């Protein structure tokens, strides 16, 4: 069974997701020693060529799959420490992962997920066609995690973290991804039934509900990927030194300086990642 990593990146005017994906892909290839492909859109490809990233991308990625530019109309607030900007949020193509992946066993990751270890190599052979992380793991401690980091709503089903998803391409997972797409297309209707906030489409919610439905409207307590170690976007990346990412982690009234090394990490502050992208690239 051939295996590989798939990363989605769709740029908006404020955030260069492709630039992050190149570094994220390089790190995944280095630590997991498997090919990495990029799923993107024509506009992002055009920008990659214009900004001089294209040649590097061709060396990093096994395949670059460019589809039509998604026409997502939703906007969201992107925090950069204490400040924020509002920008388009293009995340609607994720359910197409099943059809676009060139691999039989795929590790699907967000482009702001940086693989710094070979921990996920343990999961390629797990006898389960679909593995998703079911837990958020805050860099500081779980006291910063909110209720909606665990459930889609107060009384609703478990939230899954679509940041890391591993799947085998088969009939079962096709049904799963088709269902995720169905939920995405009928998001408001599902919000009525599952009582979540439907103002912004979230893959985490759609994946959580799809798994819940396919497991007979119960929580699947079987295998899952490890919890997603995360730095939320209100934290700031201040430096990368000797392979360690240094973060100012927000408390109620001040910050704590944290350092992460040799751990897979979800850096949610995109602007801070882009400011430090060259230093992160040095860890490759």
């Amino acid at each position: 069974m051939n295996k590989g990593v798939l990363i989605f990146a769709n740029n908006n005017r404020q955030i260069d997701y492709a630039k992050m994906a190149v570094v994220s892909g390089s790190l995944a290839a280095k630590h997991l020693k498997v090919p990495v492909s990029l799923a993107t859109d024509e506009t992002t490809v055009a920008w990659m060529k214009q900004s001089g990233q294209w040649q590097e991308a061709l060396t990093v990625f096994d395949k670059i799959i460019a589809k039509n530019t998604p026409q997502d109309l939703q906007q969201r607030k992107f925090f950069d420490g204490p400040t924020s900007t509002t920008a388009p949020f293009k995340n609607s193509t994720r359910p197409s992962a099943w059809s676009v992946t060139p691999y039989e066993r795929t590790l699907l990751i967000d482009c702001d997920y940086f693989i710094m270890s070979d921990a996920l190599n343990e999961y390629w052979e797990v006898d389960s066609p679909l593995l998703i992380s079911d837990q958020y793991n805050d860099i500081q401690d779980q006291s910063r995690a909110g209720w909606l980091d665990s459930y889609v709503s107060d009384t609703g089903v478990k939230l899954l973290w679509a940041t890391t998803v591993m799947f085998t391409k088969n009939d079962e997972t096709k049904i799963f991804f088709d269902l995720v797409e169905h939920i995405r297309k009928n998001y408001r209707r599902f919000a009525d039934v599952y009582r979540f906030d439907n103002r912004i489409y979230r893959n985490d919610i759609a994946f959580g509900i799809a798994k819940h439905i396919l497991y007979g409207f119960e929580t699947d307590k079987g295998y899952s990927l490890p919890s997603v170690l995360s730095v939320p976007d209100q934290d700031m990346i201040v430096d990368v030194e000797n392979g360690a990412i240094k973060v100012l982690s927000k408390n109620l009234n001040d910050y704590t300086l944290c350092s992460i090394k040799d751990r897979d990490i979800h850096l949610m502050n995109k602007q801070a990642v882009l400011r430090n992208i060259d230093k992160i690239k040095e860890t490759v």
Partner: protein
Amino acid sequence: MDFGYLIFVNENDESNYSTLAYALALSIKNTQKEGYDKVALVINNRKYISNYKSTWVFDKIIELDDMPEGWDVRSNMDLVTPWEYTVCLDADMLFFRDYSHWVEYFIKNTELYIANKAYTYRGDVVTSDYYRQTFTKNELPNLYSFYTFFKRGCYKEFFELQRAIIAEPEKYSNEFLTNKKPKVVGTDEAFALAAKILDIQNEISFPLEFPRVVHLKGMIQDWPYPADSVTDHVGLYIDRKGNMKVGNYQQTDIMHYVEKSKITLETINVLEEIAWKTKEEV
């Protein structure tokens, strides 16, 4: 093999426990395999079940004229059961699938087993002690009498002691429950205290993944806000096949629904229809 479930009903003109027991017995007949589907009802007066269409779901009906008030009569479960092996249940419960493999395990491995955990409607183990302060503050074993398995004639000392506690609650509370006295010493407290005094909790309630009973009390559902009743916040739905959903969750474990008004005539009709079809098929 002489196994059966035992349900107590101490009815008055304002309560509907006989309806709940009838619904439970119907659900047992609808889901349990032969040999594990017998039900005995202990009731203070037969007149309360005289209007039901299918009293055949009660394999034995034991009428007790001199029942004490409330639920203290359950402390006599070992004395009144007609079965060699018994699981005593609360009346406000429903079955949704075959649980006979649990019973098979208990018959083979134990003479007395009392449930030691409950589950939320999402299938998580209840961790809140909101309703169980007496247990945590007095370091009582966390026993739930809503599912009690026993073999007739065994653990006499335990049953006699819990009866004594029920009979003289003040005496035992003052002596043993000093850190937090319960308003009422119920069967759960009496079982837990008796087990602790006799130091047999590890014998009669060792860790197991079953029985799985969902306890639908509001404050223990692991919600981010206080909830007096569960159905103020999520819907409770029963379909024509007798399946239950609570909120977005299909229920497959034994349901201790607590809110007595949720068993309506419509629910009874659904369960009766399934029972009749099942009986015809047999």
